[in-house]
């Protein structure tokens, strides 16, 4: 178990620093220093292990939000403009088929506990993945935005899309475009990669290397997305609104939604009090969606 507490930079920064060192060593005078590069590869491996563990921990945390979000979904089924319940079920089944497991990691309310158990057992297995080579996977840093997805597909999964992706993913009811708002960046269709898995299949899963094979493919998509998200976060750190990633504010919102849709309108003032203005601004689409109803 690697102790990361004493390290000033996170695992992902260490990975980039290490890659840079390996790259620079190729042009160093005197030729590539085998010893130094071997040591750098150990740091790479260690950072990668920590990074993977952190991702899975985050996924596990997201699972807990899943529970609440499914309640939200049920609430939103009251909205005729949104997905209806049947579509939601179809999506569940499709995803389950794709993942090849009885229980989808997305976890509907009734399968909630089983999902958690399975996720928990999957985690240790995944964390034992060995670093099998000296070169990092290029796909590690592939931006999920490279995958362009048709807008129509996104619409179907908008409701659960919120659950999978960033918590600030929103659906614009006017254009029916799914948008992710994070750190001031707008990624359109960004969450669709995560959703594609639910359609059974596609390419992003297959491009992955063996390491993730033991986990369900939508975990891959999620991890891919989180990788991109973290990268964006790092690149754009000067622009960061702390409240965007302030999970406590997000969870406050979710609990408000979860407490009952009918009560939401009356509690909107509470919403404003709890959240900061920046968060409110980002949730403009949310409020718009709810107000529209």
């Amino acid at each position, binding site marked *: *178990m*690697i*102790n*990361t507490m*004493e*390290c*000033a*930079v996170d*695992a992902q920064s*260490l990975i980039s*620093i290490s890659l840079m*060192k390996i790259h620079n060593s190729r042009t160093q*005078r*005197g*030729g590539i*220093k*085998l*010893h*130094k590069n*071997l*040591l750098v590869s*150990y*740091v790479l491996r*260690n*950072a990668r292990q*920590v990074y993977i563990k952190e991702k899975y921990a985050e996924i596990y945390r997201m699972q807990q939000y899943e529970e609440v979000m499914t309640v939200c979904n049920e609430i939103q089924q009251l909205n005729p403009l949104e997905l209806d319940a049947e579509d939601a079920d179809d999506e569940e089944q499709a995803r389950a088929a794709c993942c090849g497991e009885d229980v989808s990691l997305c976890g509907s309310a009734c399968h909630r506990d089983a999902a958690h158990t399975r996720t928990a057992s999957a985690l240790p297995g995944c964390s034992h993945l060995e670093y099998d*080579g*000296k070169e990092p996977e290029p796909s590690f840093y592939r931006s999920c935005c490279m995958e362009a997805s048709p807008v129509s597909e996104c619409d179907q999964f908008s409701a659960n899309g919120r659950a999978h992706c960033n918590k600030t993913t929103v659906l614009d009811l006017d254009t029916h475009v799914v948008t992710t708002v994070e750190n001031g960046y707008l990624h359109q269709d960004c969450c669709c990669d995560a959703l594609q898995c639910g359609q059974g299949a596609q390419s992003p899963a297959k491009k992955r290397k063996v390491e993730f094979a033991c986990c369900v493919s939508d975990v891959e998509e999620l991890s891919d997305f989180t990788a991109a998200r973290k990268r964006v976060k790092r690149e754009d750190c000067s622009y960061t609104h702390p409240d965007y990633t302030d999970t406590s504010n997000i969870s406050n919102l979710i609990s408000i939604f979860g407490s009952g849709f009918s009560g939401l309108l009356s509690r909107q003032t509470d919403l404003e009090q709890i959240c900061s203005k920046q968060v409110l601004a980002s949730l403009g689409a949310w409020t718009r969606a709810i107000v529209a109803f």
Partner: protein
Amino acid sequence: LESDKQIMKMNNDVWSITDIISTVEFNHTGELLATGDKGGRVVIFQREPESKTEPFSQGEYNVYSTFQSHEPEFDYLKSLEIEEKINKIRWLPQQNAAHFLLSTNDKTIKLWKVSERDKRPEGYNLKDEEGRIKDISTVTSLQVPVLKPMDLMVEVSPRRVFANAHTYHVNSISVNSDYETYMSADDLRINLWHLDITDRSFNIVDIKPANMEDLTEVITAAEFHPHHCNLFVYSSSKGTLRLCDMREAALCDKHSKLFEEPEDPSARSFFSEIISSVSDVKFSHSGRYLLTRDYLTAKVWDLNMESKPLETYQVHDYLRSKLCSLYENDCIFDKFECAWNGSDSVIMTGAYNNFFRMFDRNTKRDVTLEASRESSKPRAVLKPRRVCAAGGKRRKDDISVDSLDFTKKILHTAWHPNENIIAIAATNNLYIFQDKLNSEMH
């Protein structure tokens, strides 16, 4: 340590990166001290004999000879430049009037003969004093040339060149106690040479895996036992030491003894592998102990105990929380050497900020000293230094961890074989400290 301090400036204050000293080594009597630098040059210092008028004044070291040992080369086949930096110098025991030393860069080892000439023949029949051929008609009688004294001249000539035996970078050379053979070690292999034979060498250790992707460790240092000509030790990047016996097999891949300290699983960090890599290994003069250096500690091992070191000395443990930044600026890859004193009672190693550390194995006392011109004058007593944690309680003259200068590193140190004289290489300067009060070892 009351000291008489000498600073040898390799060049004037304007110096280049090629002036950085890369190795320091006393010969077997301590009369000569050799340094190698990044520019491929070797400078030999000689100790002046003790003055008769001042019996307690010990001799100082003056430049004896300077020569260019290695030049930059280009390997056309691999499109690689081979650095001329001298990685190691090892003296041969003196057998006649001349001195011999081995110097090596990344690829090629050379044997140099260092000899003095203080007489020259005069009175040739066919040549005049300037060397011009005489007109034979002017020669009326024959004379026997005689040797006349001349100004001392030190001649250095390459006697052997041991080339093309190493694919990887040579990190160590070690002369055997049989005085006939020596070994050279690179990242993956160790070769045994005969000093008189340059066109072949025997490979005695090969840790290269069949598939380079399976590589997990490299050889970092190697040394022959001081007395047993069949034994040698090599250290690895994984922090292990292997003692090998050449009588057991021709290829010593299988070790006789494996010295390894189990890792503390609770102390694992991103950099555990880096800081456990052994950067230097030295037999004690007695041959009973091994001294190793890794990034943060120096350890003394008993040859009879493989499970853990006998003693562990923290050189600069305050760096443990700074490993991340030291990784970013590459300092974590610095390879510090270590040294025994003549009686194996004190060990010495370098650190940052031009500090070096000495640990007395018997009294368990340790001291941190600084090699700098500013902090001490000749004949001044070296003041012990102290590094305190950032924000910690500071005494006068203490230095905080955050103020340490990591560009000033003491990687190479050497201890006179018999006396309390040490040579410290601080970047491009060589410091020689003598302990006048305690000149004899005890």
